[in-house]
């Protein structure tokens, strides 16, 4: 755990006497008054003794019975000392905006406003992040129902005698009109130049449903803003109503391209919270699967980026390898895409017979395929001209915006969760983290290609280790928080009772909070879980890497053309399921 040393945190008291330090098992947080918080954050950021330069996350937690009602949570990271700290404060209505300290807080504050209705003083343009402007409610408040307010009559248009399901409700939550969306758009951007181009949300080139607004002068983008929320499904709200195990499938559907990596980040956080230790074999299987998924994800990135830049055939070549990986994952996890393979305390299934042989064959075959891709693109003049000098990211940008993953590493910041806070089998495997020098789209292309090779290297080590661990258990079922396997449930009454209890009442986590993250192919995927001692989380905040990475897009694209927007978006590689949640 990367928390700041308690003694060092005590040192803050000399500058801020009203500071309250709370040191828990899984976190270290400091609490301060609302009017002092900006000062404290500034002190933490600029004092070289602490140097919490990097912005990780900001969110609110709603306590309806507490006065003041909302708890604000800032998570910061210090690259110099490799430490994290949580800063908390309480408010009822307003908070000072910290966009003057970190530009990356802009969207996080918009989101907090959207979800909780807390206003931020000094924010440059406080609009709703995910929902439309005329939406009257603040959905993440505890008094708002999960299903929303069903006030619109909206029956199925398919004429049917029998209604599709028993709980089919012809009344539905309100759908915005096109005028509502136009108001939303107007609030973001004002036309100052020739045309405002709506790039997206339903557009072949925008990687899902991101809605870009470009203020164009000719083809040069003078101003840009992004509207998210076209895939906002309310996973954070849903999670407050589900047990810890039930949330696992939702983490798949967040970042659907690297489902297993999201699973691992989430399950690790929950395990730390519950104090569960997975078995040795499960750790190695997880690491292996995560790396397979990372290759899979990078291949999709390569294919779609090439497709966006016009190289159609590249897309089909990468999908050929993806199919092989999908087959491997399907063979092990049972499902191709959203596999929900992980369980608290281990993995769902043991490795099937022969799966390691298939993977070994893949390891043997894949380097030649990477070479094919590199032959086609790396030295390709057109590819270089399209990618060089597009979207140059500096180290300062990384800290300001909280960029993680490839975006951070392309700027030369060695920020890789697998390295700074290794979980599972990562402490025991040997791998290298490639770093960029320029920070442009071409660098990020090279880094992703190199990462695929490194992942292959990790997989080879995992396969070797897993062959030794052949007869080990894949699930730590002796732990009281871990669901028993199907076999045990059917053959032992204790296991059956335990299964029943865990499924109905959930894993009763001790009171506390935790922030733990995993290295997703798209960046740091962090889970901030607040537990009130119930079987379900009181608040589950998802720190999405793609959300923060995408935030730098408007700044990088200014003064460039629409064609560059495609390249830049490709190199940031966001997944809407994760940015919108």
């Amino acid at each position, binding site marked *: 755990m990367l928390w700041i040393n308690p003694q060092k945190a005590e040192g803050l008291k000399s500058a801020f006497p009203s500071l309250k330090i709370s040191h828990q098992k899984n976190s270290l947080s400091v609490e301060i008054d609302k009017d002092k918080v900006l000062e404290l954050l500034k002190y933490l950021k600029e004092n070289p003794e602490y140097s919490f330069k990097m912005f990780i996350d900001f969110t609110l937690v709603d306590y309806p019975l507490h006065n003041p009602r909302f708890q604000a949570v800032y998570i910061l990271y210090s690259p110099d000392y490799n430490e994290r700290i949580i800063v908390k404060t309480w408010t009822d209505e307003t908070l000072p905006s910290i966009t003057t300290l970190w530009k990356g807080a802009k969207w996080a504050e918009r989101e907090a406003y959207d979800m909780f209705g807390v206003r931020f003083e000094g924010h440059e343009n406080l609009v709703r992040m995910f929902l439309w402007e005329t939406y009257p409610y603040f959905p993440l408040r505890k008094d708002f129902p999960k299903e929303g307010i069903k006030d619109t009559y909206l029956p199925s*248009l398919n004429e049917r005698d029998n209604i599709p399901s028993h709980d089919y409700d012809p009344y539905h939550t309100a759908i915005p009109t096109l005028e509502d969306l136009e108001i939303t758009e107007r609030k973001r951007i004002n036309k100052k130049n020739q045309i405002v181009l709506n790039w997206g949300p339903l557009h072949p080139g925008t990687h899902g449903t991101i809605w870009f607004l470009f203020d164009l002068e000719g083809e040069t983008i003078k101003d840009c803003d992004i509207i998210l929320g*076209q895939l906002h499904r*309310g996973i954070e709200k849903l999670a407050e109503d589900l047990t810890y195990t039930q949330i696992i499938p939702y983490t798949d559907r967040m970042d659907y391209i690297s489902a297993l990596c999201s699973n691992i980040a989430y399950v690790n956080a929950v395990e730390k919270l519950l104090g569960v230790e997975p078995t040795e074999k499960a750790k190695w299987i997880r690491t292996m699967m995560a790396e397979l998924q990372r290759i899979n994800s990078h291949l999709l990135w390569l294919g779609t980026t090439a497709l966006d830049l016009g190289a159609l055939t590249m897309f089909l070549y990468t999908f050929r390898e993806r199919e092989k990986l999908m087959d491997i994952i399907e063979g092990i996890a049972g499902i191709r895409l959203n596999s929900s393979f992980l369980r608290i305390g281990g993995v769902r299934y043991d490795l099937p017979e022969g799966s390691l042989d298939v993977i070994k064959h893949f390891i043997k075959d894949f380097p030649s395929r990477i070479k094919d891709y590199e032959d086609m693109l790396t030295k390709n003049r057109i590819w270089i001209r399209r990618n060089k000098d597009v979207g140059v990211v500096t180290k300062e940008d990384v800290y300001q915006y909280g960029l993680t993953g490839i975006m951070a590493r392309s700027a030369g910041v060695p920020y890789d969760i697998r390295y700074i806070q290794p979980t599972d089998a990562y402490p025991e495997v040997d791998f290298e983290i490639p770093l960029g020098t320029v920070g442009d789209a071409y660098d990020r292309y090279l880094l992703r290609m190199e990462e695929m090779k490194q992942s292959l290297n990790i997989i080879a080590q995992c396969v070797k280790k897993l062959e030794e661990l052949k007869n080990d258990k894949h699930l730590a079922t002796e732990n009281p928080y871990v669901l028993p396997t199907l076999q045990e449930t059917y053959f032992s009454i204790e296991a059956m009772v335990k299964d029943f209890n865990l499924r109905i009442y959930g894993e009763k986590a001790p009171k506390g909070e935790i922030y733990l993250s995993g290295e997703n192919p798209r960046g740091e995927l962090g889970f901030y879980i607040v537990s009130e001692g119930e079987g379900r989380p009181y608040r589950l905040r998802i720190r999405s890497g793609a959300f923060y990475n995408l935030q730098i897009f408007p700044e990088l694209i200014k003064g460039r053309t629409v064609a560059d927007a495609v390249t830049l978006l490709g190199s940031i590689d966001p997944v809407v399921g994760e940015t919108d949640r």
Partner: protein
Amino acid sequence: MAITGNSGIILTTVEEVLSWSRRNSLWPVSIGLACCAIEMMHTAASRFDTDRLGIIFRGSPRQADVLIVAGTVVNKVAPMLKLIYEQMPDPKWVISMGGCASGGGPFPTYSTLQGVDRIIPVDVYIPGCPPTPQALLWGIIQLQKKIKEKKEGKELKEIPIRVPTESKPIKQI
């Protein structure tokens, strides 16, 4: 074709030829909403290759025949999806791919549309979360059958879903 109410032999043949041409050249709009879009891309890629059936993805709704709703439709995107549907020229069809598009799926929340058939009429529902490429191809073939059956006065009311008559028992348990 403005020749309704006539069941002359030549016109029937014309209708049949047109129906044949339509079902063999279904061009979907290349719009992906969520997870299902990845499987839709896989369906179009080399292994499953929708081009075999004459299916090529078009970027513009004006040139498309089928709208494959691939993924969760949230309230915010619903009016825009409806607009896309309205921009498509007749005759047009809609395939609802996956649980989320068909009925909200695992997201019974304030922001998710509980079934795309609340805003646009759907021809074929494909179950799955997400449906495999094989399932999407099944859906497309069902749509082809539906177009074939839809001659004058005879309309396929419901698509029969074939349930496997026997399933293998799970071993040991």
